[in-house]
């Protein structure tokens, strides 16, 4: 066996101690009629062979293209120290810190994660952790229903379509309602959450709203009127969920500042590899009064019997292994190692470094906006953005496909993710981060200009 230590002699000694002749005897409880057919799988590979196979598969992915993809997962620089420390076996081969006396490493790092994420979000309670931004958003929406005893949640159309779809799946299961808030169609606020429509949706006295969710920056990259959305929600007795991107919180107003009750988001930009969608990090934070309704692990500071400072999982009565069918969520395994990656990343960057990452991304995005406008692809919306925005390109999907052939991933055609919205049909969603280089921007603009002028290949 690849990783097992047992010799033939070891197995014989174990069988003798048990008092059976063969391992088959230990499976006597499996009914004869239910015994498995043979396993039909490829044969074992030695580590040397497996290495070749894995390199070949990885090599079949094309990660050398010039990419402006964002849309919920972002390419960033990760300092080498992050992965070096994550590779400590004491961290990555431990499990949930059920025995705090021999888990202080994991417990303290979770406490530090909670503390740093509280600083970024401006909210005091941070759970550690959820699967990704989509499930954290769904859990946040469910929290609002439990807290208000209402059954209807409003989610802005400008929240990531995967997050909206995930919330819809979770809500259908629970028998709750989730509805969309439309976006402003034109004018200076085009593409942002329609406040007048929100007000109308909140006004129905027969169908009270538990929570209102909006994203900042939005899926379209736009900055939303978060304070106004929150005021409308609160005036109707609903809670306000802010869907956030953590790097942006180094410079953008925080959920705490605009008085959101809950923040949800994906921590992937904090030093976590893109890895085709995961594992990422679901961020979920809330104000103190909602503490006992937040799902997921919480670590608190306490002392041991000798008075030493120590950390321990706390308020466990919210969790499934204690409360079973009455638990706040079924979550058990979470994304602890990704939370650790985020903590190390934040420690390595510091407050100034993180601010530089956010600001440099904004600068690169502005360069990109100018270059693309010059190439004939103006922005789709006029409002302010941080580092991601949509541009209008006639025949967006076809142009995007041809640019891939030229080694450029021109962001994502919005119609691929939101197929049902005519306002977005010609949109390409692109982003800039601190790793987007001026040369890449120039190459993109030149290739796009060539495509749009008809000088194809």
């Amino acid at each position: 066996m690849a990783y097992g230590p047992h010799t033939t002699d070891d197995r014989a000694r174990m069988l003798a101690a048990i008092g059976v002749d063969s391992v088959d005897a230990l499976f006597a409880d499996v009914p004869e009629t239910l015994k498995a057919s043979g396993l039909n799988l490829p044969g074992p590979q030695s580590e040397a062979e497996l290495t070749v196979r894995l390199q070949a598969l990885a090599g079949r992915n094309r990660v050398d293209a010039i990419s402006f993809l964002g849309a919920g997962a972002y390419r960033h620089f990760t300092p080498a120290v992050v992965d070096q420390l994550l590779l400590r076996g004491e961290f990555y081969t431990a499990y949930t810190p059920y025995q705090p006396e021999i888990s202080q490493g994991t417990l303290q790092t979770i406490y530090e994660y909670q503390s740093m994420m509280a600083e970024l979000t401006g909210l005091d309670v941070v759970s550690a952790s959820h699967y990704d931004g989509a499930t954290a958003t769904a859990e946040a929406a469910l929290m609002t229903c439990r807290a208000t005893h209402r059954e209807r949640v409003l989610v802005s159309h400008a929240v990531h379509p995967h997050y909206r779809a995930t919330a819809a799946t979770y809500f259908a299961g629970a028998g709750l309602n989730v509805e969309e808030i439309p976006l402003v169609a034109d004018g200076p606020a085009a593409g942002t959450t329609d406040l007048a429509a929100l007000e109308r949706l909140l006004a129905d006295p027969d169908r009270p709203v538990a929570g209102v969710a909006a994203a900042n920056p939005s899926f379209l990259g736009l900055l939303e009127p978060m304070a106004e959305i929150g005021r409308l929600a609160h005036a109707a007795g609903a809670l306000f969920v802010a869907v956030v991107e953590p790097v942006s919180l180094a410079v953008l107003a925080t959920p705490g500042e605009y008085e959101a009750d809950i923040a949800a988001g994906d921590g992937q930009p904090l030093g976590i590899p893109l890895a085709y969608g995961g594992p990422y990090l679901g961020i979920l934070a809330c104000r103190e009064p909602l503490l006992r309704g937040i799902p997921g692990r919480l670590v608190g500071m306490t002392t041991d019997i000798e008075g030493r400072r120590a950390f321990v999982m706390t308020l466990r009565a919210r969790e499934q292994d204690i409360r079973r069918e009455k638990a706040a969520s079924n979550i058990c395994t979470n994304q602890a190692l990704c939370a650790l990656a985020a903590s190390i990343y934040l420690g390595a960057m510091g407050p100034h470094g993180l601010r530089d990452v956010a600001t440099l991304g904004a600068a690169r995005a502005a360069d990109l906006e100018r270059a693309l406008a010059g190439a004939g692809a103006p922005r789709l919306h006029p409002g302010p953005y941080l580092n991601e925005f949509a541009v209008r390109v006639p025949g967006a999907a076809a142009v995007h496909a041809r640019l891939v052939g030229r080694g450029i991933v021109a962001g994502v055609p919005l119609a691929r993710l939101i197929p049902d919205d005519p306002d977005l049909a010609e949109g390409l969603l692109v982003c800039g981060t601190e790793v987007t280089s001026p040369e890449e921007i120039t190459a993109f603009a030149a290739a796009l200009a060539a495509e749009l002028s008809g000088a194809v290949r």
Partner: protein
Amino acid sequence: MTVAGDRLQPTLFELSRPGRGGGKVPHPPKDALTRIPASYLRGSWARLPEVSEPELTRHFVNLSQLNYAVDTGFYPLGSCTMKYNPKIDEWAARLGGFAALHPLAPDELAQGTLELLWELESALAEIGGMKAVTLQPAAGAQGELTGILMVKAYHRSRGDLDRTEVLVPDSSHGTNPATASMAGFKTVTIPSAPDGGVDVEAFRAALGPRTAAIMITNPSTAGLFESRLCELLDAVHEAGALAYMDGANLNAIMGRFKPGEAGFDVMHINVHKTFSTPHGGGGPGAGPVGVGEKLLPFLPTPRVLRLPEGGFRLERPGERPTSIGRVRAFAGNTGVLVRAYAYIRAHGADGLSEVSDDAVLAANYVKARVTGVLDVPYSRPCMHEFVASAATLKARTGIRTLDVAKRLIDYGFHPPTVYFPLTVEEALLIEPTETESLEALDAFVEALRQIVVEAETEPELLHSAPHLSPVRRLDETTAARQPNLRWRAMTGSQTPCPD
């Protein structure tokens, strides 16, 4: 409170000094944010720690050394399958082609990962005897939710709208009833039979036109194979309900039992258990779900599709309207799935069967040797884990399971799972796994034997254990009554100032 005189570490916040750290990314132009109206910007700095890289490194390395882990010792945490995590799997997940691939990369740029996912789906379907597998769920519990939502969609598609109940045995993992609640079902808890198995008659009595599904862990949380499975599955299907198998304990049965073949309609798999992806201090894992014919149309989107002309692609939004929809963003915890794929390919069919056989052999060996030291309530052969109990020890000496567990720490072992399953008094659920040497197993049994002797001769040693760990028993009551969940004291000279 002190952190002096031992291995404990100050927090990053206490290490912080304004002006430390930096140099990781270039400075941006000063005016980069002037195009954004001030009302959208944050009013004060995030008070994140400022530390140098050497301090940061020592901080986390020193913290890591306060942890017990599979890489440091025997970790027989029942129900969690804490087996060795192969190093090549870590290397593989970090290959640039896998790690740097954007989740929305066009299919033509993602062929390597798509092929890996497709092969992994096929392998897991074969191991589970299922028709198809989704790799999307991020963890076992999310796999359960995905499975039970498919059950709900199945009944609904048949116009069978009165099925509002899910039956679970009282020995189940807490995630099972919690999942049923999240999916809008009422949980009906069925007591276990005296031999630790399912009580088929009790199930039969509860089954009816309101039953949507039963959720069974097999082998059970008591480490026993459900020998009355045929009768149970027949009764379930006769009642028009579906059978969900919690695959948390798949490590016992590879090559011996395929749940799909036996009649289970749906099962989740914890790759961080059976397929040895690391537990990471609580995650990430992945919870693929296998289904039989009935639930095939309802699998979450997007599936990985193999094209007739060769190559692979992801399903597009709305392509399969019968789907329950998305359960998360993007395609799945792919980085974890690369590790699981590597593990399966390293073993092949015979290797996986040997994994299960050795896991069962090791558990029965430890069980044989623990018999007579502690109570062993179920004498028939166990699967990959077994339940011991300190009930007799407690009656004789006042020493509880908790004390035994804490004393094991002083002997250099991670304690087993304690007080679970809930059906056994003073339970210790012991899962040695197949990657522990005979010497390690013997040393663990010897430690238990000595602890039982100490319970008679020096009980105070056990009441106050552990003695040798970085910290000792914690004040959990104060932690819960006056929760301190974040650092607050970073003020004054420690606060970062604008540069």
